């Protein structure tokens, strides 16, 4: 009996010590980071942490993808758009006490760019540098003095500026990279508002406020990222108050969060698109009337209601409304099976036709239930006489086969990287992207669109680019290579006393302005 009392005493003591303090925020999420070297990582869970440790020359505005100064306070672009000169802040220090300057920036980007850089060959390549095509954009970098950094470009490329706001272009401490070598990814040192303290794999990542931050120090003293795979448990932690924030909320909890006065829900249309691509290399999808018919045949609102629990937006353009230049003038195709059937008849297919509908075997951020969505689309198409067979492959095989154009119709999607419209339109719909293995899996090849996209890339004038991308969306609307389906909403929930957190279209999670009010 005495033992029982002792045990009880121990537990009560433990309970007593579990009080959380008001300057610590615990953020729960679905899985752990892979690594914390901003140039190496490719997954969102890694970037969520990196967002708070590292900074870039330029960054995004708090709520939009507009590019604003950060480590560079200003920049000049030469008339031919080939020389970009950045003027750096001189009051910035890394968390390890070393000084941030142009040399440090040259190190951070140079290790990704220069093949002979001592830190170029490491386990795991600089994937994002390559994915964003930086090797084909940048021709050289130089540092005339400690506070000036210069890029030479191979050709004019306006989206380049947005690339510089991405995690992979962040400044890392050269001294720390030298010290930790290929283990830097677990000893991250940057210039951001929080510094790295501890990482217990699959358990927690602890960051503390950077007291020597060049800008206003963060109100939070400590920020903890805790991975919890099971969605219901994640929600319970928030509900119990042992966590103060979470993201990727299961739709089933949305109502509970809305109705709980202790919690607040944040939502925003995500920077993504889920679409149905029609392979224009294969009949009958080479006929524009058929593509228009299919656009009228699919009930997108039903998809949003049934498979996203309302947490998505019907799509009419390939880019989501959170990306600048979104063309709201584009009408979109109304759900109208009658009109669809007429269009098919006009195309000489009054009896409909048989085809395949390929669907991803795995849930994606832009499409959580691809198999069920495929079934719904199949039923919609059946109504206009298009008999489709659903085809599924293992995920890797699926991607390979659609990039080779083996499909007739395929579901797929995209999550934007840098918030520039080019990052959707050029990679997914330009004719150069239709080369196999293709990113443009509709194999849509429009010279008119190509001309517009290339001009937009080469312009430094924001207004001109904006107009060109709006035009691009009209062209795409008319040619209808896809049925754009949805833009999935991103969600986050916090305790009601957490203030100052803003969802960002890129999915960045910044905690520098977040504070917890005393109840």
């Amino acid at each position, binding site marked *: 009996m005495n033992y029982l009392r002792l045990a009880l005493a121990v537990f009560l003591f433990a309970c007593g010590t579990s009080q959380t303090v008001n300057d610590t925020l615990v953020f729960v999420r679905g899985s752990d980071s892979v690594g914390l070297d901003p140039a190496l990582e490719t997954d969102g869970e890694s970037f969520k942490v990196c967002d708070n440790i590292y900074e870039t020359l330029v960054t995004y505005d708090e709520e939009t993808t507009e590019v604003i100064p950060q480590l560079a306070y200003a920049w000049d672009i030469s008339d031919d758009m080939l020389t970009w000169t950045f003027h750096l802040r001189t009051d910035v220090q890394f968390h390890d006490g070393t000084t941030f300057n142009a040399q440090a920036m040259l190190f951070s980007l140079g290790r990704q760019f220069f093949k002979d850089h001592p830190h170029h060959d490491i386990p795991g390549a600089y994937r994002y540098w390559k994915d964003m095509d930086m090797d084909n954009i940048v021709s050289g970098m130089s540092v005339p003095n400690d506070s000036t950094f210069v890029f030479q470009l191979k050709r004019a490329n306006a989206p380049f500026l947005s690339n510089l706001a991405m995690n992979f272009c962040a400044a890392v401490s050269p001294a720390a990279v030298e010290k930790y070598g*290929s283990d830097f990814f677990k000893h991250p040192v940057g210039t951001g508002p929080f510094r790295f303290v501890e990482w*217990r794999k*699959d358990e927690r990542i602890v960051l503390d406020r950077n007291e020597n931050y060049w800008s206003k120090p963060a109100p939070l003293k400590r920020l*903890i990222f805790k991975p919890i795979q099971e969605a219901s*448990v994640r929600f*319970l932690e928030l509900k119990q108050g042992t966590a103060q924030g979470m993201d990727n909320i299961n739709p089933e909890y949305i109502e509970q969060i809305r109705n709980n006065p202790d919690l607040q829900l944040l939502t925003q249309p995500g920077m993504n698109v889920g679409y149905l691509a029609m392979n224009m290399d294969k009949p009958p999808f080479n006929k524009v009337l058929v593509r228009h018919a299919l656009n009228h045949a699919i009930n997108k609102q039903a998809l949003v209601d049934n498979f996203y629990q309302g947490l998505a937006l019907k799509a009419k353009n390939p880019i989501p409304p959170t990306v600048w230049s979104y063309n709201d003038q584009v009408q979109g195709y109304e759900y109208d099976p009658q009109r669809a059937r007429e269009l098919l008849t006009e195309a000489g297919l009054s009896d409909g036709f048989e085809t395949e509908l390929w669907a991803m075997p795995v849930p994606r951020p832009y499409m959580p239930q691809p198999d069920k969505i495929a079934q719904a689309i199949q039923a919609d198409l059946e109504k206009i006489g298009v008999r489709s067979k659903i085809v599924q492959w293992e995920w*890797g095989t699926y*991607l390979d086969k659609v990039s080779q154009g083996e499909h007739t119709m395929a579901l797929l999607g995209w999550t934007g990287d840098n918030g520039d419209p080019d990052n959707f339109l050029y990679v997914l719909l330009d004719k150069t992207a239709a080369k196999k*293995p293709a990113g443009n899996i509709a194999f849509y090849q429009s010279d008119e669109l190509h001309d517009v996209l290339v001009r937009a890339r080469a312009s430094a004038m924001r207004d001109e680019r904006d107009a060109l991308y709006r035009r691009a969306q009209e062209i795409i609307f008319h040619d209808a290579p896809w049925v754009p389906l949805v833009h999935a909403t991103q969600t986050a929930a916090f305790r009601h006393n957490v203030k100052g957190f803003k969802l960002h279209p890129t999915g960045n999670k910044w905690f520098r302005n977040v504070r917890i009010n005393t109840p």
Partner: protein
Amino acid sequence: MHLYILKRIVLLFPTLLGISLLVFLMLYFVPGDPAQIMLGERANAETLAELRAEMGLDKPFHIQFYRFFSGLISGDLGRSIRTHEKITVEIFQRFPATFELTFFSMFIATFVGISTGILAAVRRGKFVDLLSMIGATAGISMPIFWLALLLVLMFSVYLPIFPVSGRMGTHIYLEPVTYFYTLDAALASDWAALSNVLWHLTLPAIALGTIPMAVIARMTRASLLEVLGEDYVRTAWAKGLARRWVILRHAVRNAFIPTLTVIALEFGYLLGGAVITETIFAWPGVGRWLFLAVQARDFRAVQGGVLLIATIFVLVNLLADILYAWLDPRIRYEKQTG
């Protein structure tokens, strides 16, 4: 006896070699190009070729096979494709979490299971017997995710006594020495941390221990009943020995061997990581890690992880065999083998 142990240890190598061969073949032939899966929507010809080369996937089968085995023999399991971390480090960081949980689960399971089993056997046919065997059947049949969630809802939400998930409170800082948090806390003489760690261990240990507990209880009851009917037990009764002495000294000791087999098997089995329990309680163990590795087709991590688990399983069984001899001197391994 020593010869026997030596023989078993030598036999360990071909066993493990067979297992690694099997794992290699399985992962080689399973559909899905790891490079393609890793790059997802972003894959293009150039990055795909590059990543395949980096992973060594562009090499023919026999070269990949040779590389895998030569690495294995030199004790190098390579780096995880997903995280770029050394597989040995990945395992070293997570195995203590699994071991600690398994140890406490098995501690509870063994203690409660054996006591219940003895009680049920001694009171055969009585109410206690019926109740404990109903409990044991329920314990075996209960889906573990359901039990785990039920425990969380009961004892973390409605009666907020225990934490919802995790290995220790987010406010606790422990210098990681062994990664066994109970040990680390004890080493640091941090009793608040120790109680916090035990507090976090309770629910997952109960959830994970329920099935072994039920199995042990049933096995103890069955074998004890058998032994209680033996002649020598009747002799012991006839000698007029005390009830407690007959049961604990004569009967239980002999009835314990089948139970020990079960305990060893369950222990080895749980050490492989309990994916469901680890997932629900956000327990950073081997099971969940391996599960994620399989999902990402991180074949190097899967190979290393499976090999480790197989080794542990074989070792635990060896340990059980040695314990038999210690418990029952009639078992003389060298006579059997010689």
